[in-house]
């Protein structure tokens, strides 16, 4: 019995262990506890029965209640523990116990149940063990049955719950499936719709692509044939695309253009600036650029182009490809350069023109003021621009008048003197495009020097004319004077006893002397150089004149002479220098005749520096400076300009010839110097004379300024000299006497022509008078040239007129000489043709 039990127990162990052995010991102990409690209660009831305190029935009731209670608790616990396994064990245990109790009963006398009760009554306490087995087994059995029932119920319930859960799950799944189905249907519809759309889109795209291709090909045609060069370049500078025009511009072969970079195509001179701009495009600093630049064509030539470029494509948000449009602006640029250069040249010409150029608007406001002449009137370029001419020159009515005239449409030219300078101002109206007067322009040229030169020239011409006249009349005049003086002398002899008559005749003689003196002065004034210049000690001349003056000077005039020691000489004519000094001294004495004063004459050496005082009129070098000053009445400003004019005098009629200062001027000029005059009315006058100093150590050619070779030094020449006047011919013969030269003289052109024709190559040079009876000089010149072209013919004339010179030149004369012909002039001309060049004149 124990073994069978044990086998079952062993078989049940895996379930037990499987269902959780944690509760097993506790439960076993609990069941054992309960059995113990049931037994204890039975024993207590049995004890009470034995003692008679309760009846059997009461014991049975109590026992039953206790068992029932124990059973209920056990089942409850089992249910709580939900241990089917335990219940099975409890059932097996109880069956075992019951079986065991029956075995005991059988051993003893196997009473029935009734007997049990009777036996119980007979058996004192303690109750026999077999009697306990039954309630325990019973309890366990009941409890196990109950537990199995409970467990089965619980399992059923669990099943019901699980089935419910499953049903729920199925339901949810069904719902999900339904939703899925619904979704699937929607999806399918969407797919259909989308497909339709896509098909439509595809069609559209195809047609768009077709249109695009057509448009692209049109664009490509435009791109290729566009008049401007188009190219694209990426940010690395690599060229990507270009059109035909661009390739033409750059003279690039399409095959060469592969792998081409932009920078080398730009002219090195512009590369830096242009690439900087391109960088700005790629940096995103600029949207577009426009620049004129030179490009380097493949053939090495340079082309001016205007590049307009902008970003064409972005990559990763950065400018990646640049589109460039290039136009050939070489012509435009060249025109612009020419315009600019022309404008610059114009500007330079205007600003450096030796004049003042200005313009005013209709209101008289200056709009331009330029020219280098501005400096001479103390203005800067553009200084008066914006100012009003009416205000600026309010004190110069002449200027305002010219401006008004010009604004009224009438141009004027006027000489005006400003600040010691002489200007020739020309005003013209300025007309706008519509032809209306929009202002006026003016040009003022500083003609101070020209005016001075002109006045000098006029003076010179005047003096020459007077000289010619004087020379012309001198012959007759001197004859007359000679006759008067001769008869006067005869009369004086005859009337030697008559004092009155002698007195009158003396006066006649004085008059004749004065007249003769005048003629002499006029002749001197024409200053023909009759004697060669020599080295003159200017200081000695001053002392000489001082000596003369001391004997005749007015008592109220003090003479001061100051001559610096060791002065170099000057080249000149001592008599002319003396005349010049005497004239100056006489003039000074007259200026101080009434109130007296100081006449001082000083002489020293002065260097004329380039750019220094008087450097405009004298060559740089050493000059002897002679200052003659007086403290007399002075000369007014107006008269200062005229004092060197012949026959200008401030003296009363009969007291001055008006030639003194003119002679001074003439002498100074023929000596290569200048005379300056400075005067203040009431204070006196100072004349300063500069004459070029010479180096006394230098060899003297005996001639001043332009040494000419001596006739003897010129290679032998055969001269044909033609003059209708025998004296002139004789003079020429005399000139060449003793020289290696030969001279053939003819009295008229016809003779000369005959002589020349006989042997044309025998003559080297011909000097011919212009005015001759018969063939004139120029006519002869033409005839001689007809025989021998290139023959040097010099035409001479007493009249130095422009027409004479022109006529001589047109006749082919190589030179023109004014009579009277001096040896110097003749030698000069001869040497020129003898040596074959003009420089020959300097050989000596």
């Amino acid at each position, binding site marked *: 019995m124990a073994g069978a039990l044990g086998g079952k127990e062993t078989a049940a162990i895996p379930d037990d262990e499987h269902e959780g052995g944690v509760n097993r010991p506790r439960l076993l102990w609990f069941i054992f506890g309960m059995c113990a409690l049931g037994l204890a209660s039975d024993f207590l009831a049995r004890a009470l029965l034995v003692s008679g305190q309760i009846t059997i029935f009461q014991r049975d009731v109590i026992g039953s209640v206790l068992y029932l209670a124990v059973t209920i608790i056990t089942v409850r616990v089992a249910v709580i523990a939900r241990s089917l396994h335990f219940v099975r064990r409890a059932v097996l245990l109880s069956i075992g116990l019951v079986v065991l109790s029956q075995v005991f009963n059988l051993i003893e006398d196997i009473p029935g149940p009734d007997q049990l009760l009777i036996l119980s009554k007979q058996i004192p306490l303690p109750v026999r063990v077999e009697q306990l087995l039954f309630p325990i087994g019973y309890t366990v059995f009941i409890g196990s049955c109950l537990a199995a029932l409970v467990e089965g119920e619980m399992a059923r319930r669990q099943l019901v719950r699980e089935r419910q859960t499953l049903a729920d799950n199925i339901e949810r799944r069904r719902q999900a499936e339904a939703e899925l189905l619904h979704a699937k249907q929607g999806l399918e519809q969407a797919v259909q719709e989308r497909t339709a759309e896509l098909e439509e889109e595809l069609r559209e795209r195809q047609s768009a692509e077709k249109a695009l291709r057509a448009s692209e090909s049109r664009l490509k045609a435009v791109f290729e044939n566009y008049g401007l060069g188009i190219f694209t370049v990426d940010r690395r500078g690599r060229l990507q695309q270009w059109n035909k025009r661009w390739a033409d511009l750059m003279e690039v072969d399409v095959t060469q253009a592969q792998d081409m970079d932009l920078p080398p195509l730009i002219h090195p001179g512009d590369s830096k600036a242009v690439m900087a701009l391109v960088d700005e495009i790629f940096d995103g600093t600029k949207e577009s650029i426009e620049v004129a630049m030179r490009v380097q064509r493949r053939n090495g030539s340079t082309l001016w182009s205007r590049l307009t470029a902008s970003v064409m494509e972005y990559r990763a948000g950065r400018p990646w490809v640049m589109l460039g449009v290039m136009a050939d602006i070489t012509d435009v640029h060249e025109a612009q350069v020419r315009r600019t250069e022309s404008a610059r040249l114009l500007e330079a010409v205007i600003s450096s023109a030796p004049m003042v150029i200005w313009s005013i608007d209709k209101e008289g406001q200056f709009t331009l003021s330029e020219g280098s002449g501005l400096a001479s009137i103390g203005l800067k370029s553009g200084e008066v621009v914006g100012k009003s001419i009416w205000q600026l020159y309010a004190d110069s009515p002449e200027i305002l008048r010219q401006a008004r005239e010009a604004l009224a449409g009438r141009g004027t030219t006027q000489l005006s003197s400003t600040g010691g300078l002489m200007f020739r101002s020309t005003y013209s109206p300025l007309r706008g495009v519509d032809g209306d007067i929009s202002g006026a322009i003016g040009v003022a040229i500083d003609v101070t020097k020209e005016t001075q030169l002109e006045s000098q020239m006029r003076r010179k011409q005047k003096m020459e004319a007077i000289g*010619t006249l004087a*020379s*012309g*009349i*001198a*012959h*007759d*005049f*001197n*004859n*007359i*004077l*000679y*006759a008067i*003086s*001769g*008869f006067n*002398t*005869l009369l004086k*002899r005859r009337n030697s006893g008559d004092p009155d008559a002698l007195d009158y005749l003396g006066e006649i003689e004085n008059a*004749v002397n004065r007249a*003769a003196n005048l003629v002499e002065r006029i*002749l001197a004034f024409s200053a*023909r150089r*009759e004697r060669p210049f020599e080295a003159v000690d200017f200081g000695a001349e001053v002392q000489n004149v001082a000596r003369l003056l001391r004997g005749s000077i007015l008592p109220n005039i003090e003479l001061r002479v100051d001559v610096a020691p060791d002065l170099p000489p000057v080249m000149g004519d001592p008599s002319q220098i003396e005349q010049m000094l005497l004239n100056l001294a006489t003039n000074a004495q007259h200026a101080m005749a009434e109130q007296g004063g100081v006449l001082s004459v000083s002489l020293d050496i002065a260097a004329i520096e380039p750019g220094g005082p008087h450097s405009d009129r004298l060559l740089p070098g050493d000059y002897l400076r002679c200052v003659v000053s007086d403290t007399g009445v002075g000369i007014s400003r107006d008269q200062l300009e005229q004092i060197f004019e012949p026959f200008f005098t401030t003296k009363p009629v009969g007291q001055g010839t008006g030639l003194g200062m003119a002679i001074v001027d003439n002498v100074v000029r023929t000596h290569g110097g200048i005379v300056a005059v400075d005067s203040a009315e009431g204070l006196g006058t100072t004349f300063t004379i500069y004459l070029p100093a010479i180096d006394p150590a230098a060899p003297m050619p005996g001639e001043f300024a332009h040494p000419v070779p001596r006739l003897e030094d010129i290679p032998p020449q055969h001269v044909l000299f033609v003059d*209708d*006047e*025998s*004296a*002139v011919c*004789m*003079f020429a013969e*005399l000139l060449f006497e003793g020289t290696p030269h030969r001279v053939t003289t003819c009295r008229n052109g016809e003779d000369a022509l005959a002589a020349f024709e006989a042997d044309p190559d025998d003559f080297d040079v011909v000097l011919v*008078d212009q*005015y001759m*009876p018969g063939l004139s000089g120029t006519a002869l010149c033409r005839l001689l040239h007809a025989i021998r072209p290139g023959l040097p013919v010099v035409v001479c*004339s*007493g*009249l130095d007129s422009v027409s004479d010179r022109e006529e001589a030149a047109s006749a082919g004369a190589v030179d023109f000489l004014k*009579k*009277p012909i001096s040896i110097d002039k003749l030698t000069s001309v001869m040497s020129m043709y003898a040596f074959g060049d003009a420089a020959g004149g300097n050989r000596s």
Partner: protein
Amino acid sequence: MTTVLIVDDDPLVRKMLRLTLSQAGFAVRTAENGKVASQLLEESVSDVVVMDIVMPEKEGLETTVEIRERWPRIKVIAISGGARLGPTGQVRLEASQNLRLANRLGAHRTFSKPIDNDELIQAIRELASENL
């Protein structure tokens, strides 16, 4: 007696010189140009000829040369009052050039008009004495 020939185109001067030189004790003849002077000298030579240079017809320089060649003993005193003018009035040779020329052509003395007659008389006397 020293014989003097005065050659001058100016009748006033001729007359004045004739009177002056006559009074000074010379035997005086006059001629108005070189041509006349040559004729007179051909008739009879003079000791001294006072010769004006600038004259119409045959003029002084030419006559001086002729005298030097034909009558070398005759002394010539050249006198000139001014420039020699060309046909249109222009100056050809100036007085001083004339006299210098005369000197080179054989004139023994030269004087520029107006002349101090005392000096002229003195010069005539000196030249006349040279031939004695």
